[in-house]
């Protein structure tokens, strides 16, 4: 962790806030979504790990007492995301949001993005002390990572075969209402809106169906059945998409949000997990249905996926996607801008695998300048890391990133 002291940090923040900005953060984000030029490029992060939150605001508010059958209060100190792996309550959700809000304000970001899924009290069947199966048959485990932070890890799927799936279906597909997820989720978003809705863009982030399906079956089973038994995957994708669409619709109807985010990785550094022809045939139709159903409600749709998705980006655009995150440096953001700049708002790109971790603030500043030069002209660019502010990013680099955004990101951009 960085040697940056709290005192130095507060001074820096003070200096940062001196600028004369014409737009409210929310307006700035909206302009970017609509591919208009704001006063300056907005900034947002889709994920900020607990260790970083703590370094930025000094200490985190803890959940008091036991949270139902979880121990969020005990965990909070160590886990990167305190609400993973414990049964969540409305109270826990509020604490989580309050902490995040403080961090967002300190960093002077323009949006409050939070993973709604991590707030919802979904089903958890513990198979031993540290591992459980979730409502969509994926196995998760908690444990310390090498830096002493508690993490939650995906451990594999349980729907390996057709028989597994038949057995799983016997009780009917999971139902978000039955699971009691929607009530907590709507409560959390409304709380978020009361806290920051006037000033910040609130972006609830969920899933669209892809990752649930992939994780339920496990990578190998899912990807091999794209060739051998695609019908099985499709049946599952249809069910996971329906489930998430119901969640998303409930959010939109109850909370009147402007945008829904989604986090569903479909690529690694080299390219999509599967050949484009299989993506277009067996996966895209479900995503398209998801996006189109939401857009009918007049909102923006945002999607996060790791990796290089250039070979299938046409499909996302065809589906009607509005905002793409995080355009990892394995893709040239200039190329993405040139090809899709009139259709997609781009968010992210500052390298959190190398530069934010091992680089200097100067390296970060140079990278931000490059990203602005390539992606900001004409509007439609939101500054941020190439995935998340994870615990190994240096605090001084994080600060340098957002400072550079303000310094070099004012419109008109040459």
């Amino acid at each position, binding site marked *: 962790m960085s040697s940056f002291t709290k005192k130095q940090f507060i001074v820096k923040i003070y200096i940062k806030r001196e600028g004369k900005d014409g737009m409210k953060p929310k307006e700035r984000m909206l302009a970017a979504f609509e591919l208009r030029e704001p006063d300056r490029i907005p900034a947002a992060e889709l994920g900020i790990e607990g260790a970083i939150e703590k370094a930025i605001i000094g200490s985190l508010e803890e959940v008091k007492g036991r949270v139902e059958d979880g121990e969020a209060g005990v965990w909070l100190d160590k886990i990167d995301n305190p609400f993973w792996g414990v049964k969540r309550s409305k109270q826990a959700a509020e604490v989580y949001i309050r902490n995040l809000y403080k961090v967002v304000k300190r960093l002077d970001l323009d949006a409050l993005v939070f993973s709604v899924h991590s707030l919802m009290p979904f089903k958890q069947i513990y198979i031993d002390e540290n591992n459980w199966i979730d409502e969509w048959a994926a196995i998760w485990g908690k444990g310390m990572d090498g830096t002493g932070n508690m993490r939650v890890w995906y451990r594999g799927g349980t729907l390996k075969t057709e028989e597994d799936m038949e057995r799983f279906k016997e009780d009917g597909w999971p139902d978000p209402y039955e699971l009691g997820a929607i009530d907590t989720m709507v409560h959390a978003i409304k709380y978020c809106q009361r806290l920051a809705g006037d000033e910040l863009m609130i972006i609830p982030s969920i899933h669209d169906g892809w990752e649930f399906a992939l994780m339920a079956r496990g990578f190998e089973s899912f990807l091999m059945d794209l060739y051998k038994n695609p019908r099985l995957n499709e049946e599952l994708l249809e069910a996971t998409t329906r489930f998430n669409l119901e969640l998303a619709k409930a959010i939109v109807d109850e909370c009147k949000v402007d945008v829904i985010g989604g986090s569903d990785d479909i690529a690694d550094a080299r390219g999509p997990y599967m050949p*484009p022809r299989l993506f277009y045939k067996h996966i895209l139709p479900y995503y398209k249905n998801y996006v189109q159903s939401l857009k009918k409600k007049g909102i923006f749709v945002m999607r996060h996926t790791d990796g290089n998705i250039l070979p299938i980006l046409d499909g996302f655009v065809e589906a009607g996607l509005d905002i793409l995150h995080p355009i990892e440096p394995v893709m040239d953001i200039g190329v993405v801008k040139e090809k899709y700049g009139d259709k997609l708002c781009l968010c992210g790109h500052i390298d959190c695998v190398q530069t934010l971790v091992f680089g200097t603030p100067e390296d970060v500043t140079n990278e931000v300048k490059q990203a602005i030069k390539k992606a900001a002209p004409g509007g439609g660019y939101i500054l941020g890391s190439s995935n998340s502010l*994870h615990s190994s990013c240096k605090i001084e680099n994080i600060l340098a990133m957002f400072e550079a955004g303000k310094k070099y990101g004012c419109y008109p951009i040459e």
Partner: protein
Amino acid sequence: MLPYRIKAKYKKLRDREKKELNLDEIKKKLMESLGDLNEEEAQKYFNLLLEEKVPPLEIINTALKPGMDIVGSRYETGEYFLSDLMLAGHIMKGFMNILTPMLKSDASGPKLGTVVIGTVRGDMHDIGKNLFGTLLIGAGFDVLDLGTDVAPEKFLDKVKEVNAVALGMSTLLSTHLFEMKNTVDLFKREGYYDKVMIIIGGRPVTEEFAKEIGATYGKDALTGVKLVKRHLGFEE
């Protein structure tokens, strides 16, 4: 069990095919169908070669290896994707499961040896590591997969225990690169560094980092397998 009539029909077809194609052509067909990821065809020609008692090593060297080379180059050029590579690995794994026992009973066969693989301590990510394992098996190695969250001491113990020819380590997290260094350092301290090839891979791993800690850099699973084979003198 297939009805007799159908079986007879298949046999007739097979006989005709065998007559029409000489062995070299069958090998070529196997190579091509593996390269094209046509599992059904590949299985058919593989079976034909087995029926004709073509030695396992010959099947590997003249059909399977060149077939995997086609897959590799198509992956390199971006024509193939991760799932294609996985599929190729699966087809190969199936073939090698049949050929390996035959090779072992044949004293003249090559001994590629055992590769120990695992994700470093504190990290649970395993897609890349699993693919590396599948491709290694496909290439004819024995693989001891220690799974995820593997401590340096465990890597060393297992390498000693199975007398491994290579050790492969993986991580997806920048924060956990130091565990690769810890492991390499442990091998150096224990005098085992020169006895085994150490290859590392994963998202945050760079060539410079690998050089710095004294390991070989595997850009991706496929390159990794090539490097291990080259290091052991099984490939140019």
